[in-house]
């Protein structure tokens, strides 16, 4: 029974709950048991709050008995990246800096999940403050890829991806600043989606780079991702950058017959640095769309090659300011060695932050310094506009864009840890999507000979998540990648 449940989609589990074949407690216990069994080799969770989850499951079952079901997510376990605030639970962002911190408030996404009746199962590992592409930058040890535990799961939402891939939760939330949902989803063989900037509230998401951060769903299927996004999307008066727009019924849109979309393939995304096995799998997926009658259009995104340098100016600049609040004065890690206020800053931050976070704070501080601002920050903002314009121009021709999500499948732990530049290039296909504020989705499109998942990225137009889901769903329905599970 339990092993059956853990590989079911959330949509299927929801149906079982509705039919009364299982209870939320059954589900929750099954996923807890699975987590307890595989966590020693995966380490996706920073904190599995068993009692808290079972309490919520019982409440969900009670609601069901009383006929007060709140919707399809009621009673379904969801795990959250440990960068999204849950009232009265620790919020660490995988940093020693926040190790003792307990958040006194709910993020808007958390509140929406609670209101939908979801069972908040646990908090997931990540790169410290969402900075990284391998989950190795966690202060509490790395997460391992369920397909090959000598390999990284991707990052920064590595815990969120590995957790779903290993059958430890049906749904999770990640955050994506430069590919942090899509790249680990690709490397772990699941569906991960970054919504249009402004679709999901950032209130309660510990900020990395405010103009790029978005929370998004991670799941086994496109339909599950649509279900989870449906719950968390929408205007939030507490987030001034959230967009006041009506949210369509994403799952209903999936019932529509597939269209003959015009799909763009950017030549720049298939050049040097792309692993041949990944390239082949992605091209096969493109050919499948063509075979269904979709028009495949070769497009050009000429400024994409500048997206990594632009990102590594803008994101650290914002981060250097966003992370200034972690100073040991009001909360979080406070050095016991400090002699005075200034010393308190130096020592608390010196002890609390890991090397990658320090590297980015230094980088960001440098590019904002007087005399360098124009050459770096201002220039990068201008190029950001060019990158966005490339996409908007392409969308005059096409409905969506198909690319690889990551240039390679999962790499080995430690392989790139001491080479930040090659690590940064892991996000070469995802970063420009954040810079342009567009929605992007990664879904499985094959395996390497080493049985490592490969991901296909679909990039959509602003606020056209429905269409993005439709395009991905059509492919998913015709393929059975998701029926293969990692052998843990």
């Amino acid at each position, binding site marked *: 029974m339990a092993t059956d449940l853990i590989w079911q989609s959330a949509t299927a589990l929801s149906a079982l709950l509705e039919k009364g074949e299982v209870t939320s407690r059954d589900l929750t216990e099954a996923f807890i048991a699975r987590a307890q069994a595989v966590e020693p080799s995966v380490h996706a969770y920073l904190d599995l709050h068993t009692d808290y989850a079972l309490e919520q499951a019982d409440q969900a079952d009670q609601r069901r008995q009383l006929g007060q079901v709140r919707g399809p997510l009621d009673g379904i376990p969801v795990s959250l990246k440990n960068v*999204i*605030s849950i009232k009265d639970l620790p*919020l660490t*962002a995988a940093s020693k800096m*926040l190790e003792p*911190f307990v*958040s*006194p*408030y709910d*993020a808007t996404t958390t509140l929406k999940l609670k209101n939908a009746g979801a069972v908040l199962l646990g908090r997931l590992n990540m790169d410290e403050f969402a900075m990284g592409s391998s989950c190795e930058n966690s202060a509490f040890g790395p997460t391992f890829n369920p397909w090959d535990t000598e390999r990284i799961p991707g990052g920064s939402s590595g815990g969120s991806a590995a957790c779903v891939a290993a059958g430890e939760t049906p749904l999770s939330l990640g955050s994506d600043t430069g590919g942090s949902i899509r790249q680990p989803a690709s490397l772990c063989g699941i569906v991960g989606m970054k919504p249009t900037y402004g679709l999901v509230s*950032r*209130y*309660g*998401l*510990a*900020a990395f*780079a*405010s*103009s790029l951060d978005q929370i998004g769903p991670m799941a086994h299927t496109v339909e599950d991702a649509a279900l989870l996004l449906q719950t968390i999307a929408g205007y939030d*008066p*507490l*987030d*001034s*950058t959230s967009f006041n727009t009506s949210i369509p019924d994403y799952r209903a849109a999936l019932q529509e017959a597939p269209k003959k979309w015009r799909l763009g393939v950017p030549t720049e995304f298939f050049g040097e640095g792309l692993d041949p096995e990944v390239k082949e799998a992605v091209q096969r997926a493109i050919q499948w769309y063509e075979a269904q009658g979709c028009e495949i259009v070769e497009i050009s995104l000429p400024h994409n090659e500048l997206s990594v340098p632009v990102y590594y100016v803008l994101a650290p*600049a*914002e981060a*250097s*300011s966003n992370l*200034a*609040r*972690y*100073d040991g*004065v*009001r*909360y979080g890690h406070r050095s016991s060695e400090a002699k005075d*206020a*200034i010393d308190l*800053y130096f020592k608390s931050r010196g002890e609390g932050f890991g090397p990658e976070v320090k590297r980015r704070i230094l980088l960001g*501080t440098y590019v*904002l*310094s*007087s005399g360098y*601002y124009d050459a770096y*920050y201002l220039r990068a903002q201008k190029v950001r506009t060019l990158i966005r314009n490339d996409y908007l121009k392409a969308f005059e021709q096409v409905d969506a864009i198909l690319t690889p999500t990551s240039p390679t499948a999962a790499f080995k732990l430690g392989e790139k840890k001491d080479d930040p530049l090659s690590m940064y290039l892991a996000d070469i296909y995802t970063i420009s999507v954040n810079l342009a504020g567009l929605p992007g989705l990664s879904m499985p499109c094959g395996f390497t000979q080493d049985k490592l998942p490969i991901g296909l990225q679909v990039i959509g137009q602003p606020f056209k998540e429905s269409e993005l889901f439709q395009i991905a769903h059509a492919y998913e329905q015709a393929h059975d990648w998701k029926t293969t599970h990692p052998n843990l």
Partner: protein
Amino acid sequence: MEYEAVIGLEVHVQLKTRTKMFTRVEQGFGHEPNTLTNPVIMGLPGVLPVLNLAAIEQSVRMGLVFGAEVPEVCRWDRKNYFYPDSPKNYQLTQLHEPIVVGGEVEIELPGPSRNVMGEHKHIRLDHAHLEEDVGKLNHYDFDSLVDYNRAGTPLLEIVTQPDLRSPEEAVALLQSLRMHLVAAGISDCDMEKGQMRCDANVSVRPQGADYLNKRCEMKNLNSISGVRNAIAYEIRRQAKVYEKGGTVIQETRRWDAESGVTTSMRSKEEAHDYRYFPDPDLMPVRLPRERVEALRAELPEGVFDQQRRYMEQYDFPYTLTSVICYDFELSRFFELAHAEYDQNPKAIANYIANELQRERAAGEEDGLLPMSQLLITPSHIAELVRIIDEGKLTKHLAKDVFTEMFQTGKRPAAIVKEKGLEQEDNSDELEGILKEAIAKNQKAADDVRAGNEKAINAFVGPAMKATKGKANPQQVREIVLKLLNG
């Protein structure tokens, strides 16, 4: 050599709004430490700012009061620096596109005496930008504690052009700003509560020179006398440096009110690099022109405009206007009383400026009874003046009636009736009394007959005494003249 000072002020004004600048927590003064806070004020992970529209509108109104431009769009920048009173270690402010640009403030310098209007000048404003206030550090022997109650209070920084030439002009600017901002309900500007704070940029140059010397910025000028004394000290200090052949270096100096000197805080080289950049959490603010015009239409009359109008329209002397107009509460009291009885503005104004102020001072050890605690309303004063004008109460008795109504809140007409103070129109009785009085004082009677009208006063006293104060002095005059001159 004669030196002249060149002074510009940066005046921080806490805006009068119910809640803070970027979150719905009440703002206030004198509360238990760290009670006016929430996750946003404390800068917890994940929080975001949300604009308080009331602070935006108050800032727009400030711009309109001083004839400034209110651009269609203003934007937010982050000013990054580490200090324990700043919860996020950056301050949200407006560096490049502030909410108010230009404008000017009319100031009045002290006149030769308090009864004579001083010279008026116009001081140009550079701009005013909106930002959030920081918390407050309290230092003790072995540690320091932070109170974040003040953090996040809407703060408008009003920056003048270097148009001021003396400590007196700087003080006059602050006073004019305060009068106008209080009158328009934009800020309470109480310097003791830190609602108005001032930094001054001072340089000196030879009288008449057309160049600017290096300036020093003085921080921590948190009282009117502090502003006056610090600037005066700094002008002397800089002049002495030049007299000795030295040069003034650009630096930030701290004013120590106790020792009365300024000391160096940091030089230009040590100045902070604030690493300003556009705030990514807030959208630019678009100010619809219709709304700006609606706010303009609701503005109160300018203080000096009102003063000129009172002098011209009601023939008020300067001294009376300087009491009534320079105090927003008194001028509003006057306007309301005048609106109820518009036949004698000067009498109403005089009662407010003299009797009301005297009574407010009488019961207080220090200062005046707050207007909000008065038992009487503008309507009381309007009624009092009306019944005097109608001849129902003598001015002489009105003084007591005023005291009575001030203390009890009773209507003046009711007091007059209750105490039987109605002025009597009994000329027969009065004629009898006066005939008697004339018979007793033939010298005064002769003087009156000789054309000395002042001598009539000799009969007013006895008439008042005999009628217990109810006699109308004007009527006494008329009867005396009739009796003596036929």
